[in-house]
């Protein structure tokens, strides 16, 4: 008889193209049973495409997927679910208008014809206790922050008793502590409950600490696989980009005669449910200064960002930019060179079905040279500028006319970054800018933000990644429950103190 294969899942010689673009070229990936396997690669390397081919979300042009020794025809995600393969997608698949409990129940491959909510809720509550984090089961998804949503996505899969769990950048929006908690739990589950995990991540720390094996892709090609104890981050980084990496440290130039550019005074804001999200927040940011706001997601950061970006009206309080009242109108944004980089850029800063060129033109499409004075658009200028920005910011896209929703996660982020940072900026608002970016892009964006600061831009950086805040900020604030509860500088910062304030003690 044939010997038992050590692999539970094999994707063999997979190729996939999207029109002209070859997203995957003859890629093979083998997932050992009861192990954690990391999949690495730069933004746009084809990682998401590969796992989507495995899940049956895409059909590979060439190649086959073997599941436990046998070739399985996975033609749609439902087949994969029935085989016990579960996936957390890079973009949220939760249904906003439904509750957490409904979303969890819905993910089952076989739903009972009639759902006995009382019984199910009791059961869910019981099983939630074994989960690495707690989310109120009857909260509507709309009321959750990005981090909380990601937690629900993961819990959803963990509750499904899947045999193979595929996670596409599950920790991008989690704080390092949360990420450790989740991955630790997943690692334990793989050992004790025979769970096989394929995890896409950009964080070497997570690969080194939690994975057993790693596969690297570069520009749609297979580069290599290795056991994690035989590689190191520099080796992995070199495999990802194809050459040695030289790190240039951030240059912080001392600011000469700073003046307050952005002032927020006693800002009170309510969230969608009418609950107070910000309880009288005040801060000011000087020119040539980066002020970082650290905090656990869901403590008012999202509402703050929305008010500044004009997506939400403040209840009371005032915002002044350049000593003038600011109400987030287009004219004011233009006059004060006020730019924003919100979280979840595909939702908050892009129109997914419009082209990269159009999305890049949002700030200035109605001004010359993009609009002629009779109100008509100059398509040629728009495309020309898009080409320039695509080149300058290294956006990987089939072309300027591709819908921005088709780009890889990291390239959507770059597109928005290109739009917001290409021109001169006086005030820059940034939220979780490196969510989902590869190490090269993170370094790149940090350089860009620092360069803007050095040119005299006032930067307000809201991030759930404390390391990022410590690295970039001149001044650091901690937000908790809609209030700023702590202020310090990176030099004087004590992690335990910050942690305590973040946790709300």
């Amino acid at each position, binding site marked *: 008889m044939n010997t038992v294969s050590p692999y539970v899942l094999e994707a063999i010689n997979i190729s996939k193209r999207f029109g002209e673009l070859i997203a995957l070229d003859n890629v093979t990936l083998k997932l050992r049973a009861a192990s954690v396997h990391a999949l690495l690669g730069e933004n746009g390397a084809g990682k998401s495409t590969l796992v989507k081919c495995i899940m*049956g*979300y895409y059909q590979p042009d060439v190649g086959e997927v073997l599941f436990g020794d046998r070739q399985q025809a996975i033609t*749609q*995600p*439902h*087949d994969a*679910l029935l085989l016990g393969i579960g996936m957390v*997608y890079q973009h949220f*698949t*939760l*249904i*906003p*208008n*439904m509750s957490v409990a*409904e979303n969890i*129940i*819905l*993910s089952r491959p076989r*739903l*009972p*014809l*009639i*759902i*006995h*909510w009382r019984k199910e809720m009791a059961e869910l509550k019981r099983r939630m206790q074994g989960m690495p984090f707690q989310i109120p089961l009857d909260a509507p998804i709309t009321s959750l922050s990005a981090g909380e949503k990601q937690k629900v996505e993961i819990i959803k899969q963990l509750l499904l008793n899947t045999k193979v769990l595929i996670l596409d950048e599950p920790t991008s929006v989690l704080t390092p502590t949360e990420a450790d908690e989740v991955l630790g739990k997943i690692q334990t589950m793989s050992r004790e409950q025979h769970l096989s995990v394929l995890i896409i991540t950009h964080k070497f720390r997570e690969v080194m600490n939690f994975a057993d094996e790693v596969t690297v892709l570069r520009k749609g090609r297979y580069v290599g696989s290795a056991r994690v104890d035989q590689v190191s981050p520099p080796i992995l980084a070199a495999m990802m980009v194809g050459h040695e990496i030289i790190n240039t440290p951030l240059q912080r130039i001392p600011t000469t005669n700073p003046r307050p550019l952005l002032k927020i005074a006693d800002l009170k804001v309510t969230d*969608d449910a009418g609950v107070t999200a910000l309880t009288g927040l005040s801060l000011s940011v000087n020119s040539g200064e980066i002020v970082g706001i650290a905090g656990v997601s869901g403590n008012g950061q999202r509402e703050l960002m929305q008010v500044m970006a004009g997506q*939400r*009206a403040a209840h009371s309080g005032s915002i002044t930019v350049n000593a003038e009242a600011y109400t987030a109108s287009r004219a004011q944004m233009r006059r004060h060179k006020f730019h924003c980089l919100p979280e979840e850029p595909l939702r908050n800063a892009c129109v997914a079905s419009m082209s990269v060129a159009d999305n890049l033109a949002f700030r200035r499409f109605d001004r010359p040279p993009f609009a002629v004075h009779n109100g008509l658009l100059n398509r040629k200028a728009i495309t020309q500028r898009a080409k320039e920005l695509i080149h300058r910011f290294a956006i990987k896209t089939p072309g300027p006319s591709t819908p921005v929703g088709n780009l890889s996660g990291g390239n959507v982020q770059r597109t928005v970054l290109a739009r917001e940072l290409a021109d001169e900026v006086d005030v820059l608002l940034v939220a979780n800018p490196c969510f989902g970016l590869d190490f090269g892009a993170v370094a790149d964006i940090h350089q860009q933000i620092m360069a803007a600061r050095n040119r005299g831009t006032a930067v307000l950086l809201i991030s759930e990644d404390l390391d990022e805040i410590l690295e970039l900020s001149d001044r650091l604030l901690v937000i908790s429950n809609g209030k700023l509860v702590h202020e310090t500088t990176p030099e004087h910062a004590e992690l335990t103190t910050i942690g305590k304030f973040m946790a709300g003690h």
Partner: protein
Amino acid sequence: MNDTGLGFSGVLIAVLGGAVRVGTPFLFVSLGECLTEKSGRINLGLEGNLIMGAMSGYAVAYLSGSPWLGVLVAGTSGMLLGFLHALLCQQQRVNDIAVGIAMMMFGTGLAFYLGKSFIQPVAPRLPAIALGGWSDSAVVRAALDINVLFIIGTLLAVAMAWFFRHAKWGLLLRTVGESRNAALAMGINVHRVRLYATMAGGFLAGVGGSFLSLYYPGSWNEGLSSGQGLMAVALVIFARWNPLYCLYTSLLFGGAAALGPALQSVGVSGGYYLFNAAPYILTLGIMMMTASSQQRCAGMPGELSNV
């Protein structure tokens, strides 16, 4: 008390009775629209289904002598129109709204064409349950004749609310309506779910039409509907896509529409036309009161914003 009726309590009872009578077609069409929209598709053509249902139900009831068979055929004709609507909407680059308007014209036109010969004959009426037997006032008795379709509609509203929350297919239908991508990721056949939802919604609208011709006003002619099919679309928005609210708002609309005639019956005839406009004024008023600039329409299925 005067001999024209029972004064204000009389007006009240007449309005209540009218609410049920006028509200029933609203109820069926809005439930149908609610079901369709929950699956992420708008069917503006339900006015066509309504009129087609009225005509075919009347014709079959007249020919067979059974009003219930008429109701069934009315529903089926609506279902067929729904099928056609769904089929058209599934094509690439087709817009729900445009198809809906075309289907409305088509259904109405077809009904007028086929229904020419049924304008004169008298078909049997649908039965009602007399809850007003205790009273010796004719007004009260007439008002409390509760038609069976209304009772069915009420049960249906409750059943639908339950279905959306407790039944597997209810949850899947909502998923399709909320997020096409999430549904695809779950392996749900989006087209098929929408097809069934549109057909079922079309059926209900057809039944609503048969009420018009077989109960109240209770005959077939070309001026039978006064836009109930279109109003129902607004009504669903107003009911926040909740079947139970559909029931309440249908009654509210019905009651408002019955206000004018009821007042007239007690001798208040000033402002008759103004009172007839009550349902429309009511719609506008409540929409403005409940609208909020802070958040988008609560309860709206996510996919509708992409239509």
